């Protein structure tokens, strides 16, 4: 698989604050990668370095074989930087057409492309609206539309759904999912649920260092997340549920969480129909489930270890 981002031994500090400490990673063509980390972990700094907005202290970076910010990447790498705004004096159509022309499109091509990308983010009717007259959510979507102009091979999105209402956030997630068939994405977000749905690789920044997780790990132990329906609150006792689940064949661990959530670990080699046995167990005890999903949630993969360490 062809790698489109190659980062090796990258470091960046602001004064005495070392934000990125010798990080290395690779992103392959077709991958949709999540960039996760706490506030101040260096996500935006990494984005800025990849976009060529700032210079690294040391290390190497290559995007599609070129240096960040180089002419070879114009039109091939697109980005939605955090907090960047369009010029409020011009209409979003004018500005996106201008960007299209900067990428090498003719005026008519740029106009048509602008209409296409504005339609993607449901802003086709706002072509002539000035950026300053748009709501926060609409401005965000207009900024996102500029990242889809042309046919970028790599799209970097910093907090793409922050500040959007749920309906528009869902629309953007679906859009990214559709476009990920044709382009690679690197997405930074605090919304773990969103990243879990969209991404097949996770870069977790912690204390300036990088940990990589694959969203679909191939492990000998399998996991199931279960949430029981709240309608049967009175009848459900967490200890009783755990006790019953512990008796399932192949089970290795059951952990009860808040809101009737349970994390089950089992050995798939021992039982290949564990999920069916689980459903039979729930039915036999009269428990209704609200949600049942295979695998550990990304949140648990990333933060359970830290939580356990802190405890």
């Amino acid at each position, binding site marked *: 698989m062809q790698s489109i981002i190659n980062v090796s031994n990258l470091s960046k500090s602001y004064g005495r604050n070392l934000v990125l400490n010798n990080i290395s990673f690779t992103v392959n063509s077709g991958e949709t990668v999540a960039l996760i980390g706490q506030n101040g972990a260096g996500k935006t700094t990494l984005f*800025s370095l990849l*976009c*060529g*907005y*700032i*210079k690294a202290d040391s290390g190497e970076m290559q995007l599609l074989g070129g240096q960040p*910010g180089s*002419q070879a*990447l*114009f*039109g091939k*790498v*697109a*980005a939605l*930087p955090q*907090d*960047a*705004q*369009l*010029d409020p*004096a*011009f209409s979003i159509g*004018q500005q996106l057409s*201008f*960007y299209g*022309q*900067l*990428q*090498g499109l003719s005026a008519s091509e740029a106009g048509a492309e602008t209409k296409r990308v504005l339609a993607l983010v449901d802003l086709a009717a706002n072509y002539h609206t000035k950026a300053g007259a748009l709501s926060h959510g609409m401005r965000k979507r207009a*900024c996102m539309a*500029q990242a889809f102009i042309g046919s970028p091979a790599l799209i970097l999105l910093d907090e793409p759904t922050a500040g959007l209402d749920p309906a528009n956030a869902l629309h953007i997630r679906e859009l990214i999912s559709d476009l990920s068939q044709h382009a690679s994405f690197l997405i930074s977000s605090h919304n773990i649920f969103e990243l879990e749905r969209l991404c097949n690789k996770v870069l977790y920044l912690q204390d300036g260092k990088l940990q990589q997780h694959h969203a679909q790990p191939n492990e000998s132990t399998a996991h199931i997340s279960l949430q029981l329906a709240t309608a049967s609150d009175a009848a459900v006792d967490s200890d009783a549920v755990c006790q019953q689940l512990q008796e399932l064949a192949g089970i290795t661990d059951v952990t009860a969480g808040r809101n009737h959530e349970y994390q089950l670990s089992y050995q798939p080699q021992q039982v290949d129909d564990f999920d069916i046995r689980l459903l039979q167990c729930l039915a036999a005890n009269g428990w209704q489930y609200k949600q049942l999903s295979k695998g550990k949630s990304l949140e648990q993969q990333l933060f359970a270890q830290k939580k356990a360490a802190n405890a």
Partner: protein
Amino acid sequence: MSLMLLRQTWLFSQVELSRLWLTRRGLMTLAATAVVWFFLLRYAIAPASDILQEPNFQKSLTAAFGMLGLHQLLNWPAPELTLYWMLSLVLLPFLSLVFTANQLSSDAARGTLRFISLRSSRTAIVLGRFCGQLVVQLCLILLSLTATLLISAVRQGGLSWQAIEASLLISCHLLIVLMPFTALMTVFSAWARSSRLALSLAIVTLGVVFGLLSWLIYHQPDAAFVLEYMPGAQIWQLIPAQGWQSLQLAALPLAQTAIFLVIAQQILSRRAL
């Protein structure tokens, strides 16, 4: 210079032109320019034109400033152009500092430059914004010159070809005079985080530099030649200049412009966006 750089420079210039004619801020600039020139034309140029035509005044001017060559001012085909020329040479460099202070700083502060820099080199951004500002200033010069010519035509009952040719010469000269001042503001707007700060820095820097030079020349009179390399130094030679051959004075401002643009490009290239 690559074809892409030229194309992008042209695109940036078009955007600046649109900003002048199609945005509220641009129209305010036009309105402010119109008001300033209305008062200059109505209460300074028009009445002074009559005085300039009086033979006694012309004799006095030649006698008083003949050594300096200022009597050449009387050779412009219309007295209105003489006054326009003098006023513009003194006023426009200062107005240029104000009008061109926001070449890059607002876009950098807003983050718009992040969108642009993914599609255009920082060299093209600097060059494009500079050229855009020049095109805008040329528009303003042509508008004010047209108004001056109209006043002259009304007073004289017609317009001569010489007056039109002189207007073209004045436009070229003024544009060249404004180049280093515009490029200077490119430098400060690439550096500062707001147009106000850019303007303040420019004024303070020019003041400090001229102050230091004055001190230096006071103690070392041989260093006076340095003043000849400052922006606008050729203006005093330009005032009595006539004819297209006077464009030979353009070498210094063009060189200053090139130096300032290189500095601006270096600042923007190193600046975090």
